[in-house]
């Protein structure tokens, strides 16, 4: 039997690539680098996930070691991931813009996962500050991927402004609740022309598959992998789930029906 990779190579199965701004990705999974049991597990999980782009945070360089604020870039030294810095922890447009600029300087990338948090219990975005920061960063030449509500109007504004993608949340960060409102995600996917990445909320593989089946272009996750009892194995589960969901979306599923439809032939039954 041919392997999935072999099937794809033969052209029988084609999964479209994900294009964000000028970069093309084979993997539709973006993975965070935080809260793994240890760096070794993180690196193995990133490998297992098949991701090509990972997120990092910008924090004060602290010379005291062993505080969880070591340079991620050193951990990654031999790896070749695209780096997507975030502005996690910022509560105002001003903080987020400065953090984005520091990230650009430190990492030589103008890509930014823009987070402007409105509330530390829900970690939901502050819409007004997010729009303001997006505008400023776009004017300054950034490739902006904003973490936002599952609100079609906000997503439309961000897209119209020139963001490279919108990243609506599926559920609160780290909650593992899955896609709490698939209808909004579906509406966003339908009315927006740029990539839609579900960011936050995914808890397990079926959540990831379901999100992809709604037609979104990718998923960004961290806690679901890093916080699982077996992060490396869960990373592989997520890789497979994202591919499964995408392939299913592109395959054209059977319609749902209330009643049954025999799969075996009805004719030729004995005694009939």
């Amino acid at each position, binding site marked *: 039997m041919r392997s999935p990779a072999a099937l794809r190579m033969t052209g029988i199965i084609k999964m479209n690539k994900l294009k964000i701004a000028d970069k093309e990705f084979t993997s539709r999974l973006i993975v965070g680098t935080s809260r793994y049991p240890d760096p070794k597990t993180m690196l193995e999980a990133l490998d297992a996930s098949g991701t090509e782009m990972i997120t990092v*945070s910008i924090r*004060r*360089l*602290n*010379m005291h070691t062993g505080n969880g604020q070591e340079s991620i870039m050193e951990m990654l030294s031999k790896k070749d991931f695209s780096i997507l810095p975030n502005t996690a922890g910022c509560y105002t447009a001003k903080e987020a813009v400065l953090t984005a600029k520091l990230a650009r300087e*430190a990492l030589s990338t103008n890509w930014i996962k823009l987070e402007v948090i409105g509330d530390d219990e829900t970690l939901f975005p502050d819409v007004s500050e997010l729009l303001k920061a997006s505008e400023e960063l776009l004017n300054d030449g950034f490739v902006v991927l904003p973490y936002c509500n599952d609100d079609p109007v906000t997503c439309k504004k961000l897209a119209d402004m020139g963001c490279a993608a919108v990243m609506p949340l599926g559920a609160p960060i780290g909650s593992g609740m899955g896609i709490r409102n698939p209808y909004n995600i579906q509406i966003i996917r339908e009315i927006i022309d740029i990539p839609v990445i579900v960011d936050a909320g995914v808890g397990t593989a079926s959540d990831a598959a379901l999100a992809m089946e709604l037609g979104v272009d990718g998923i960004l996750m961290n806690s679901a992998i890093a916080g699982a009892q077996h992060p490396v194995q869960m990373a592989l589960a997520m890789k497979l789930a994202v591919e499964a969901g995408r392939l299913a979306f592109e395959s054209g599923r059977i319609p749902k029906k209330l009643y049954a439809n025999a799969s075996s032939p009805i004719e030729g039954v004995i005694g009939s």
Partner: protein
Amino acid sequence: MKIKLNGELKILNGSNLLDEVITSYLNGKEARGIAVALNSTIVPKQKWNDTALNENDEVEIVHAVQGG
């Protein structure tokens, strides 16, 4: 001269050149993958040498850490 470095008060007894303040802070560590802001404005690496600090300046030296 007093400045604030990564949120903590610091008395500069020697040079007030940004470059030297950074070097001292890094304590032998290589200055790769870091970025610096002075009073909320980025100072690119090539300007560190030209930048003199003033009383009460706020300096941020940051790098990338694990994040989600």
